[in-house]
């Protein structure tokens, strides 16, 4: 027999033979957990999977032959740590974000065409109905547009003042960037609440989109009644294209979410929520930067350009950009 001698117990013998490799794995794991896989040398990296597999094997053996509880617990913990080190999915955060916006986000939206159409349809219906109703009886304007939002824009406001709002310079003393960050915070919250409302089966989401559409339509009708219709849209659309699209995206997410609760299909509700909820959450996540751009545009571009034709051009360019973006990534999906 060798110098170590044979042990009376198989389990003790087993431990004696394997212990060194466990301790090697443990020291590797400690370094990985503290500073990442990158600290390992090439040799250590090739060693890791072998040590991991050996630890898993040791665990199976120990469970079968050893009654030493500490040993089994130690090996379980070791195997778990090694498993996470091997399969942790550690990524470079920036890489993940780039990949998401380059491929995943447009693909995601394309896979939810129906809820997107419903969300967009409710907003559009709101705009049209609000517009028609207000054109016929201007008093309805007060019902559709909340006072806080209307500010000085009511049917009793003189045309000159309505026009002035479209081309107003920012008020003195309030910095544009403060305005932009407030807008962003406000809008992003609306989007996220769209997702949260999906909990109630998606009905409030449609309602929210529809009532936002009513407000917009009523305002458009007010301006159209003074012959300022075109200029109103030129005022709204450069940032509105992005902002409304983001709102519709969040609405889509809320609908997807609600549908998962109402129609779980062959899965249980929790399972359906888990698969669909993730997609819905990602849609909202992608929409948040859109709100950011929209807010920047709203506070900077609007006051910089006073020419309706320039505003129309920019709005068209932005819209084309979004269409191209959401049509992109198709080839990658096939390949």
């Amino acid at each position: 027999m060798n110098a170590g001698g044979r042990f009376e117990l198989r389990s003790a013998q087993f431990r004696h033979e394997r212990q060194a490799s466990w301790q090697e794995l443990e020291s590797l794991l400690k370094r990985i957990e503290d500073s990442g896989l990158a600290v390992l040398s090439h040799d250590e990296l090739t060693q890791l999977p072998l040590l991991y597999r050996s630890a898993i094997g040791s665990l199976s053996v120990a469970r079968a032959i050893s009654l030493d509880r500490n040993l089994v617990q130690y090996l379980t913990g070791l195997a778990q740590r090694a498993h996470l080190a091997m399969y942790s999915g550690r990524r470079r955060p920036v890489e993940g974000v780039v990949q998401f916006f380059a491929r995943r986000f447009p693909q995601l939206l394309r896979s939810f065409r129906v809820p997107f159409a419903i969300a967009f349809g409710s907003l559009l219906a709101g705009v049209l109905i609000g517009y028609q109703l207000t054109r016929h009886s201007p008093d309805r304007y007060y019902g559709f547009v909340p006072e806080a939002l209307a500010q000085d824009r009511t049917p009793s406001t003189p045309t000159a003042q309505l026009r002035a709002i479209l081309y107003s310079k920012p008020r003195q003393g309030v910095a544009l960037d403060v305005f932009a960050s407030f807008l962003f915070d406000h809008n992003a919250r609306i989007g996220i609440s769209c997702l949260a409302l999906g909990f109630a089966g998606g009905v409030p989401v449609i309602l929210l989109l529809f009532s936002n559409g009513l407000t917009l339509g009523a305002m458009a009708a007010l301006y159209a009644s003074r012959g300022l219709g075109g200029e109103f849209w030129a005022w709204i659309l450069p940032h509105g294209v992005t902002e409304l699209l983001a709102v519709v995206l969040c609405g889509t997410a809320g609908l997807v979410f609600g549908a998962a609760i109402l129609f779980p299909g062959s899965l249980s509700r929790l399972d359906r929520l888990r698969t669909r909820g993730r997609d819905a959450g990602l849609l909202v996540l992608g929409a948040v930067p859109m709100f950011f751009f929209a807010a920047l545009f709203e506070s900077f571009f609007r006051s910089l350009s006073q020419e309706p034709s320039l505003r129309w051009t920019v709005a068209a360019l932005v819209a084309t950009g979004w269409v191209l973006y959401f049509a992109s990534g198709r080839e990658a999906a096939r390949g």
Partner: protein
Amino acid sequence: MAEPAGARTVDVLATDGTVLPFEQAGLVERCAALCVDQVIIFAATGIMVLGALLVLGGALGIHVLSLMIVINFVLRNAYFSFFEVRGGGATPGKHWLRLRVISRDGGALQPEQVLVRNLTREFEVFVPMSVLAAPQGMFPDLPPWAGALCSLWLLVGALFPFFNPRRFRLGDLLGGTIVVSMPRIELRPELVAAPVERRSQPTTDTEYEFTSVQLGQYGIDQLQVLEDLLRVDDEFEHKETLVAVLRRVEAKIGWDTPTPEARAGEFLAAFYAQLRRHLEQKALFGVRQQHKREGRLERGGRSEPPT
């Protein structure tokens, strides 16, 4: 993967089909980790704003406010996702408390899952916190009773973990993730490391030889209690416990001559080694004796015929 309701572990299959039972972290640990992270975010916002003030001085003016809004928003929303993607499922707070986020299906934790589980934080943590901080300020336009109701609704996110059996946060539910605790367990010294060769020489070992009937009195449960007892490092009080256990074992197996108190540790170590060999051998042949037998043996340990 099977997820029985109420279970506190998540079984993950390793490469060769070995089951790794991950233990779900308790609410207290998770809250503690969250507090650590919040303190870090708070401190970081303060330092960045102070730094900007020092560098730019008075030139900043009104922009300080917008800077704070943006910094706070970015930190609040990016901190958790950034560290959980980069650190393999652990923010600094979680790392410190030895918690990890893992994917419930046992696969690699995807960045998407991390993003989704942190998306709901606004609704779960920050909104309820502002409700609690200024209950009347949230809905100034509403009558008090309506404001109270709305505030209650905003607390739903924070209270969500208390209303499901597995204590999932909303984000964990959506992201398909779970927070597990990963305590580091030390490998303690082997208790039976006596090579066979030494046994050929007459040693004190032979003083305690137990028959298989005597060893058969106890099961795996008792063996592991004894294991914990023998691995206690603390000397105080320990002596008394050892002696008490010694007397109970002696009574149970019908040991002839009472062992002197000073040698209680020695007796129990020998008993542990032989009991473990006995039970491990039985287990190898497919009989796992988990519990002890009822009753005691008479003096000499021979009165009851082996069954």
